[in-house]
Each structure stands twice: as structure tokens, then as C-alpha cells.
């Protein structure tokens, strides 16, 4: 088997469903010698994080925004979120879902809304907790607006080839370098 680092697959939901794109990404990795077989036993943890029971060493995280779909694969837990910035009730969402430190930063730097959102979502996907009552209890930034590198994880902001911004949350032991693959 090929030793593989982070793999970021992109596709369009115009062509296939999320499940179809995931299947295509898995087959591509088998063809490349990265995975030994295409896993089939997709299941969820009690908190709703997906994994394959027949290949638990393969970690992955899916996100989509509009028709743009991405999936990040790695040998350690990962989380990913992409979000095309658009008009929304930013103040109400921040009041409800952001930590006070994030709200204070956002008040002076409104352009930080989607970077903060995608970092928070990528973190709860990495941890496997999902959006729960703790979502507003942690801050992904420090008082200077810098993304925090925490105990065992790191944030990597990125932009897809089609220009959709997002954030990856990786286990700290993973190299932040990643290969990109297009499924379209």
C-alpha cells in the first residue's frame, strides 16, 4: 500500500449525490493503491460522526456548500467545512452560536464571520461531537483573532479550486500538506 498523507477530494453535486461522490473518491484511492479495498460498512458513532466499520483506520470528513462538495481523508481524525459567504443573520447567529471572544472579535472584524464559522464546524467534526450545546462554549480564536492551535489539533484555512473558502481541523500529528483530487 502507498503511504498517503492528507487527501482532499472535490466534486459537484450536479453530477452525483454525496454518497456517489464518496464512493467515487474511495474507488479512486483503491486504484491509486492508497486504500486496500472500497469499504462498505458505513455507520455512525453515537454522536453522529460517520466512519466505515470495515476500515476504521481511514478517517474522513465531508462538507458541501451549494453544489460544491469536498471530502478530506487521512490516517487520523479530521474535520472539514466549506461555506460560500452569503447574506445571513450574522448577528443573530453569532449571538446564539459564537463564544463571547468570537463575538467581540466579529464586532470589530465582520469579515471574520465565515472563517470563524468554518473553523468551529471543522473542529466539532474533527472531535466527533457535532453541533451541540457546547458549540458556543469554545472559541477557535484568541483575543488577537488568530486561530488557536489546541491540544491535539490544528486549523488549516484553505480555498477550494472553485474558490469556496473553508477550514480543515487536523490531528496535530498530521502534516498540513495535502493532495487535491477532482472528481468531475
Amino acid at each position, binding site marked *: 500500500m502507498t503511504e498517503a498523507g492528507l487527501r482532499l477530494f472535490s466534486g459537484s*453535486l450536479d453530477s452525483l449525490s454525496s454518497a456517489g461522490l464518496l464512493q467515487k473518491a474511495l474507488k479512486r484511492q483503491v486504484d491509486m493503491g492508497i486504500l486496500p479495498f472500497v469499504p462498505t460498512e458505513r455507520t455512525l458513532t453515537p454522536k*453522529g460522526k460517520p466512519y466505515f466499520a470495515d476500515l476504521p483506520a481511514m478517517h474522513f470528513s465531508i*462538507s*458541501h*456548500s*451549494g*453544489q460544491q462538495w469536498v471530502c478530506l481523508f487521512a490516517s487520523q481524525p479530521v474535520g472539514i467545512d466549506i*461555506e460560500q459567504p452569503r447574506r*445571513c*443573520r450574522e448577528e*443573530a*447567529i453569532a449571538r*446564539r*452560536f459564537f463564544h463571547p471572544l468570537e463575538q467581540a472579535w466579529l464586532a470589530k472584524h465582520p469579515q471574520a464571520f465565515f472563517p470563524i*464559522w468554518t473553523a468551529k*464546524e471543522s473542529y466539532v467534526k474533527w472531535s466527533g461531537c*457535532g*453541533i*451541540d*450545546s457546547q*458549540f*458556543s462554549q469554545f472559541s477557535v480564536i484568541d483575543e488577537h483573532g488568530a486561530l488557536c492551535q489546541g491540544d491535539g489539533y490544528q486549523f488549516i484555512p484553505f480555498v477550494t479550486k472553485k474558490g469556496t473558502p473553508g477550514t480543515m481541523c487536523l490531528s496535530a500529528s498530521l502534516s498540513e500538506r495535502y493532495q487535491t483530487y477532482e472528481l468531475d
Partner: protein
Amino acid sequence: MIEKILAIITEVTGQQQLTLQTDLVRDLQLNSFDVVNIIIAFENEFGIEIETQQIRHIQKIKDIADYLEKQGVHD
């Protein structure tokens, strides 16, 4: 009540021809941020707070309607 629920989701998402059985992810391709926007719209409209841990259980529009009914929200 149902018409109001569907109207709010149409306003937030721009999607039409909705029913109670419409699946927010499978049929409308919404993501969790879209669902959060919908939640905020409902909270604003009805003056309630939907528990954050309920968000992951909202898959169909019917789930929102059932939750509102449980909270005693009526027309």
C-alpha cells in the same frame, strides 16, 4: 401553521414546492449552516429558542413542525 413553516423555509433558502416530508439535506442539499439559518428564522418568528442539540435531529421539515408543536407553538 404548516403554511407558515414552509413559507419561512422558502424565504431562507429560496427553495419552493416544499412539503412536510421534504428532507432538508437529501432533497434541498442544505448543509448545517443552512439549517442554522432556518433555526434562527424560526426562533425569531415564534420567540422561542430551539435547543442546539436538537439541530442534528432535524432532517425533514416535519421534524421542525413536530418540535414546534411540542413546544406549544401554534398559529
